[in-house]
């Protein structure tokens, strides 16, 4: 119970800190997901929106916390606590959208793009001499998975006859299964699935993403993008390793028949730690440093029309599967690409299958 409260509070705090931090770590050329020309990056309207957004976010944090406490006080159900996190994420998007909307209005009213030469810049070296995929960073995930299999195979004869395959949030088993290879090795299947998924995303960043080069200082922009790609892939592979480690911990509990209140922590702590580290690393490198490159005088073209609701990239003419996020960390899918629709359909089908297998059987 206390574990669930602590986890929800920790997650809410993480969301709030990230929300307050994002304006400071995003590229100044896209404040709140609005493309602005260089001479307006420090416009009064932009500065004002950052201030207003931060206040709104702090108030939302207090409200979400209050909702959490009230829900728990009235119902006493810990399962409702993640609702606070959802409320906070919803409020975050609301605050973002208001700021996005205001800046867009000022930009249109004052005609920030009038008379500017808008261009698209491309770094061909990214295709002719691409950065190397950090394959070595896949090793920890593979080693942990193989170790889990080896330990599982060796200890299989010693495992209890019934295995706990599902736990409540408090760590007590609520579903048991007769010992079988499928039940005993279910965490290994999760490990393989998660590793494959994260490697797939990292590979998509390398093979199917498009950089967003700033024509005003293209060389440093391109250099930063290469670095960020490699960092992103390393963060994903590191996350895979830590999720696999969490699954190794949970399989050890299952295989030895251990029941403790801190069982959820065995899974959640490594994953939370990895998520925090990945966020910190990406946040610290989320925008290019000023390398003193002379301004070319060119302006990035105004591409706001492809960003629906300020956040969702929909461009049918763009063949890229992933593009760098304008607001926040990492990359986002191009929802105008047919492959994205297929991927999303696949994810929905997979979730449906898992839910049917879990609750139908």
């Amino acid at each position, binding site marked *: 119970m206390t574990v669930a409260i602590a986890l929800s509070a920790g997650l809410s705090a993480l969301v709030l800190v990230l929300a307050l931090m994002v304006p400071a770590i995003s590229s100044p050329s896209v404040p709140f997901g609005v493309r602005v020309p260089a001479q307006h990056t420090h416009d009064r309207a932009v500065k004002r929106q950052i201030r207003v957004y931060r206040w709104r976010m702090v108030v939302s944090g207090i409200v979400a916390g209050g909702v959490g406490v009230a829900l728990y006080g009235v119902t006493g159900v810990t399962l409702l606590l993640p609702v606070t996190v959802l409320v906070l994420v919803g409020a975050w998007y609301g605050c973002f959208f208001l700021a996005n909307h205001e800046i867009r209005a000022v930009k249109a009213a004052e005609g920030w793009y009038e008379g500017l030469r808008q261009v698209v810049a491309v770094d061909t070296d990214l295709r002719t001499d691409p950065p190397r995929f950090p394959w070595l960073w896949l090793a920890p995930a593979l080693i942990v998975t193989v170790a889990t299999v080896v330990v599982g195979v060796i200890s299989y004869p010693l495992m209890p006859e019934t295995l706990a395959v599902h736990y409540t949030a408090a760590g007590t088993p609520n579903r048991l299964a007769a010992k079988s290879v499928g039940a005993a090795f279910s965490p290994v299947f999760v490990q393989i699935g998660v590793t494959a998924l994260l490697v797939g995303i990292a590979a998509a960043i390398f093979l199917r993403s498009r950089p967003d080069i700033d024509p005003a200082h293209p060389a440093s922009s*391109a250099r930063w993008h290469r670095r960020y790609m490699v960092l992103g892939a390393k963060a994903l592979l590191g996350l895979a390793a830590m999720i696999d480690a969490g699954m190794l911990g949970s399989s050890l509990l299952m295989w030895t028949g251990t029941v403790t209140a801190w069982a959820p922590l065995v899974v959640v702590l490594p994953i939370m730690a990895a998520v925090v580290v990945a966020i910190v690393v990406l946040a610290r490198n989320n925008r290019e440093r000023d390398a003193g490159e002379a301004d070319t005088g060119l302006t990035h073209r105004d591409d706001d029309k492809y960003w629906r609701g300020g956040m969702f990239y929909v461009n049918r003419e763009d063949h890229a599967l992933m593009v760098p996020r304008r607001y926040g960390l990492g990359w986002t899918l191009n929802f105008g690409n047919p492959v994205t629709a297929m991927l999303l359909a696949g994810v929905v089908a997979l979730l449906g299958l898992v839910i049917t297998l879990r609750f139908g059987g």
Partner: protein
Amino acid sequence: MILTVDLASEVPIYQQLRDRIVEAIADGVLTEGSSLPTTRALAADFGINFHTVNKAYDLLRQQGLIRLNRKTGAVVTATVADPPFRTEWTARARTLLAEAVARGLSADEILETCRSVLDSFDTTQPEDTP
């Protein structure tokens, strides 16, 4: 190499691409044997149709600046200016210089601009003297 294209310009995109690549060769950013991205990759990065990139590459191939190969893709080749090129280029230079004269630029100013543009190109290029 950084390529920039103005999608709203009156100059066709394939022409802009071709011009930027020729300038990169003159600058020494691209040298003999440098490879260019595939048409599809370059088109995807610009968010333009790959036929447009094809057209630019084809133009460069006709002018002997690149070699297109199914296996190695587009590769920059060494080229020597032949007499027809000299004649055609002189005609184009004539138009360009005439524009400057017609707009009232002095001969000294024009020559100075020509010199500084030439100086900005990489001096190791063998074909930088017209």
